[in-house]
């Protein structure tokens, strides 16, 4: 396995070197050459010392090859030492170095090699974004996703990122909602984050069923929660005020639920929600009509 990895490293470097203007450098490239030699030998820690020294030289700062090798060494360090660190500084340094290399480079073949490296890092960022998308680590997930997004756009400028954005933001909204539901009073700001995240999805795709359905459900749930949180001992004025707030939320939920129904009229959960919202709005005929549709749909199955 280690041998395969070593061969792969060599092939990547060879591809890069073939596209480089010069393989070996003169006096000013002592540390560069040493770093390259250590990389070829698989001595990545020694390579780091040399490339760090090389990058301190003024002319290295404007040299795409130097930045590429710097990125390569740090990517290997990431793989060796920080493979399971979602916030790996080595990985971030590698990514920044490849970006810098690309920004300075005019060699098409080398640019392609750099983009391939960025694509690799992008894949790692994406996987970490998925892995950390839970109620504890979601902030890390968002950071990783933003890095993936940037990497994807750089490595494949024509890539349609919107589909991935929608997929990720739907999952993120669902995670925010889960955080909110852990403690609705303490985590009230996650209600807003859930709403904003679904609305973001709808700004990209107004006909997204999941975002519409879940926004409808989110507002309905909130209205119901308010009703159930009414303390029996509060005065009737306050009861009326809570009811007004709930009704506003039910009305806010309705267009989203109706849109979801318009998109997918044969989904049971949409009919359940619509029947429920109308019931909460005391519009019993409409509630019954959706309930009837639900019953008919179930009979057809």
């Amino acid at each position, binding site marked *: 396995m280690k041998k395969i990895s070593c061969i792969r490293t060599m092939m990547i470097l060879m591809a890069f070197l073939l596209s480089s203007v010069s393989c070996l450098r003169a006096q000013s490239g002592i540390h560069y050459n040493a770093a390259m030699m250590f990389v070829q030998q698989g001595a990545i820690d020694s390579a780091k010392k040399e490339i760090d020294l090389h990058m301190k030289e003024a002319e290295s700062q404007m040299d795409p090859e130097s930045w590429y090798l710097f990125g390569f060494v740090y990517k290997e360090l990431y793989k060796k030492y920080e493979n399971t660190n979602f916030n790996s500084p080595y990985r971030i340094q590698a990514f920044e170095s490849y970006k810098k290399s690309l920004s300075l480079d005019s060699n098409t073949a080398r640019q392609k090699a750099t983009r*391939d490296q960025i*694509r690799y890092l992008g894949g790692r960022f994406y996987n970490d974004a998925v892995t950390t998308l839970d109620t504890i680590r979601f902030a890390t997930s968002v950071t990783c996703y933003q890095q993936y997004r940037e990497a994807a756009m750089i490595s494949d400028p024509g890539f349609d990122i919107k589909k991935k954005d929608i997929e990720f933001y739907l999952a993120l909204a669902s995670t925010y909602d889960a955080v909110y539901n852990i403690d609705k009073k303490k985590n009230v700001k996650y209600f807003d984050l859930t709403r904003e995240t679904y609305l973001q999805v709808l700004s990209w795709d107004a006909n997204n069923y999941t975002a519409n359905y879940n926004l409808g459900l989110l507002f*309905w749930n909130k209205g119901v929660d308010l009703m159930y949180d009414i303390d*029996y001992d509060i005065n*009737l004025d306050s009861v009326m005020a809570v009811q007004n707030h*709930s009704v506003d939320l039910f009305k806010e939920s309705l267009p989203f639920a109706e849109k979801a129904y318009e998109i997918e009229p044969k989904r049971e959960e949409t009919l359940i929600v619509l029947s429920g919202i109308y019931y909460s709005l*005391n519009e019993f005929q409409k509630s019954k009509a959706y309930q009837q549709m639900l019953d008919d749909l179930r009979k057809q199955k």
Partner: protein
Amino acid sequence: MKRHLFCFVLFVLPAVFGFQTSPNGDTNARLKSVFIYNFTRYIDWPAEYKSGDFIINMYGSNTSMLSELNKMALTKTVGTQKIVIKNTTTLDGIGKCHILYVSPEVTTSLAEIIAKVKGKATLIVTEQPGLAKKGAAINFVVVDNRQKFELNQNNAAKNNLKVSSALLALAIPVEN
């Protein structure tokens, strides 16, 4: 070929992203039970009704309403009186009670129900259009998607119940 060296399997976001759960319970029943509890604070029963259990009888088979009333009785009292929830589906099952909630599916005429509680200090609470004019003291109605209540002070007074002005101010007043 080189490109494939860098490709590896991307994880898949969970397909379940999305579907939250519908709320449980009946908000309308919940709200009405809150209203009913509040009525006990704004209405004065005769002295002989201020000891023993405070009985709320539900006439009908509205399980949501019965469930909410029972939940309320578990934690609340009326002064020192324990709240007891009763349920009947027959006219004969209506005994002495402080509040009689008549569920909207009940088809018995209100006149018959009133006759059953005649001479008793029972607050009759209904939920059908026009019943506050036909003998109910309080009738739940829907106005602008909101649960409100009509109050007929004369009908309450007929059953020896005193309604506070605060409750009147919040109600939709109805006269015979």
